[in-house]
């Protein structure tokens, strides 16, 4: 667990409610994320975890409540605002450009960092060239960080699932986010791949100081990595606290964990 989380709040949501027609997906949820921490959101399927991330990065617009990100309070986020202000994410179902190489996919994550226009980029001279070199270097640092040099030029569609997940993390990192939203980064992985991914999540957090919001079903992973855990159940907030508190909360045990963890 990390030593860097500070009392400063990077993101706070207040009384967020989200409905699709009569379906109430999120019901008056309030929580905050402190700068530098690893914050997990857990809950059974359909609890509203992914919806919560979608609200944070502006993909869903809640009917009620407010979102405060880096001191600015909004009724709702917009995706471009979220991206421009340093929120990046990965998806539960991998969303990469399958026909493009690992390197190119990671370069697309640099999109917002590129300032020159299409004209200069097409000519590949002057500032566009300098910019491309800078961005390539940043992308290469991520490739090095994630240990994926061997697949640098392979089309991602041909890669095994575990590596695609890693490339997706790489693309999110390319945006140099302050807040990284990870939606089930370890789903469908074997234990070795999971262990690698845990290592990367911890390293991202400690090396770059990136704040991380994590959705994950593997309780071992959640309890080991997280500074604090938020528990949702059918759109309602069930519990919120440090892993030990959550683990011993009777509501959580009843709804989700089943038997208490032995540690």
């Amino acid at each position: 667990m990390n030593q860097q989380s500070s009392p400063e709040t990077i993101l706070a949501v207040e009384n967020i409610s989200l409905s699709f027609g009569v379906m109430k997906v999120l019901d008056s949820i309030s929580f905050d994320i402190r700068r530098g921490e690893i914050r997990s959101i857990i809950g059974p399927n359909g609890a509203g975890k992914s919806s919560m991330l979608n609200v944070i990065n502006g993909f869903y617009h809640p009917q009620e409540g407010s979102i405060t990100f880096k001191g600015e309070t909004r009724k709702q986020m917009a995706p471009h605002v979220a991206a421009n202000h340093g929120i990046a994410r990965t998806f539960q179902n991998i969303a990469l450009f399958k026909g493009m190489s690992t390197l190119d996919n990671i370069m697309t994550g640099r999109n917002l960092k590129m300032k020159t226009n299409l004209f200069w980029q097409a000519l590949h001279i002057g500032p566009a060239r300098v910019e491309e070199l800078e961005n390539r270097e940043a992308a290469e640092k991520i490739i090095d960080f994630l240990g994926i040099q061997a697949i640098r030029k392979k089309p991602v569609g041909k890669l095994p699932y575990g590596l695609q997940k890693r490339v997706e993390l790489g693309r999110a990192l390319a945006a140099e986010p302050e807040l990284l939203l990870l939606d089930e980064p370890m789903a469908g992985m074997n234990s070795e791949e999971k262990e690698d991914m845990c290592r990367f999540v911890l390293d991202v957090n400690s090396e770059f100081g990136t704040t991380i919001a994590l959705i994950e079903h593997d309780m071992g992973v959640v309890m080991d990595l997280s500074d604090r855990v938020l528990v949702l159940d059918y759109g309602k907030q069930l519990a919120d606290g440090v892993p030990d508190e959550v683990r011993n909360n009777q509501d959580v045990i009843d709804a989700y964990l089943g038997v208490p963890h032995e540690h």
Partner: protein
Amino acid sequence: MDQKEQDTNLDTFPKLLASHVKLRPTQDAIREKDLGIWQSWTWAEAAAEIRALACGLATLGLKRGDKLAIIGDNRPRLYWGMTAAQALGAVPVPLYQDAVADEMAYVLDNADVKIALVEDQEQVDKMLEVRDRCPNVEHVIFDDTRGLRHYEQEFLHDFETVQQAGVAYDHDHSDFYDREVATGKGSDVSIMLYTSGTTGNPKGVVLSNDNVIITARNGIIRENLTSKEEVLAYLPMAWVGDNLFSYAQSYVAGFCVSCPEDATTAASDLREIGPTYYFAPPRVYENMLTQVMIRMEDAAEIKRKLFNYFMEHARKVGVRILNREPVSLKDSLLYKLGDVLVYGPLKDVLGLRRTRLAYTAGEAIGPEIFDFYRSLGINIKQLYGQTECMVFICVQPDGEVYADTVGTPAIDVEIKIDDNGEIIYRSPGVFREYYKNPESTASTKTEDGWVHTGDAGFFDEHNGHLKIIDRAKDVGKLNDGTLFAPKYIENKLKFFSFVKEAVLFGDGRDYSTAFINIDLDAVGNWAERRNLAYSGYIDLANLEEVYQLIKDCVDKVNKDLSEDSRLANSQIRRFLILHKELDADDGELTRTRKVRRSFVGDRYDTLVESLYSDKTECHVETQVTFEDGRTGSLAADVQIRDAEVFKVNSVNQEAAA
């Protein structure tokens, strides 16, 4: 001063380094691919790095005779660590980087290591794990800082910080480094290399500067190597071969060494560098060939036909062309066409287009594999060597390359076959001793410098080349008195791309039996093309079709054996496909990936007993060690099959010979 006299003055690596700084300061000494780009250091730049590091090591208390452990993948900074230690008269001790912490603890303790220079967090963590058991390790220096920011132990040092301390020290004591280098002598200990040890604990082979440098120079003279060679350093630094080819010969000849970006990218880095001088153990050549064959099977029909046609032609005349034997004009022209269409592009893909000299050693190489490369025009040769003499014992001379011999003695090497059939030799490269192990030293090396190889062999009557049969102690007898040479048969099995490993049993038994490990890539691809579903290794290994496939391989080997009257009775009667891959982490292979036959036999004794009964199936449960050191258990029902046994075919014996 003439060349020879000058050479004898250059009797240590730091002195050789200084001479290259004078002779070729701006030529590249070492390269490394980092962030996707090849970074290079000239001899002058490398020398400055080494000087700073040496002085830095001195500030940490490294003195003449102390040991510096070096642990990691091939990295310029780790190679510099070797020279820096040698500059101070200290002894570098490279360790196998993929060894688990316990194995490292033994060497760190046995070698009295004072400082460890390691690559990254993974290795630092191992050092922390064994720290209690190795109080002699006073400092740990790491190259890659990633993940180490929050480590606060005082004995951990960043490589650059050590160099900075060294630069400051050098500034205040400007004659220190040169004085230390001048003090070094040819008779000083140059390096300690731990042999992987097929039996018992590893032993530290102590080699002097003279041992290493004279042997390296003899190799260079024999093969006319120059300062213009290109090599890729991708084999473990702890292995004597890497030390010779990527370090010693580079320092003696002055050629540039390139370090791959990552262990996983070695193949593509090889292609980018295009080495002129290349070394690989047989398994690397085997893997390359397997990959080529898999990809050709998946290629479009026209490409496959083109490939097959020209490879057939290469098999016919390629080796003769390489040996400069006469061939017909038509064959020669067709070969040239093949070179444009197939051989050239193929060598390019393999990264061997510029390769002037390729060595293989360590294990026997399959004749088909060997001939495949030679028929493409790659001058691949076998050599026979040991850590105990800095590699070279025998090398195949150009134009006299046979798949079943290891060639003629290397320069300055004397070889004898003793009464038991064991090969013994004497050379300037012969090691001083096993570190702190006088009994082993005495049993291996005679007082007048002859070394027992432990290998059984003989000189071929026709061409005078040395032939190796097996480890002397492994050659046994079946109950009927037939010679049982397990490795010889295992190698025949391993020459099939579907067979990754084989373990033969038969000494003191009625007949021979075998464990087979299938090659997951090759057999997996084969199965996929036949629409055979399987969930993983165990499942694949248990498929009826796979058993049939492997039985065909075993039958062919038996057919082969039946043609040699001495070995005909050692045909494999029964075999099984092992349910797991043999693994060094489980102790089944050595770190250099040689099978530890008796260990495997003990570990799977129920399976061995079943092979010598009439059972057709055997339940087995095995402890396995995962990469992170945890253990688990693996259970499977292993099937046992009979192989076809052929009658002794003494008529063909003449033809085969």
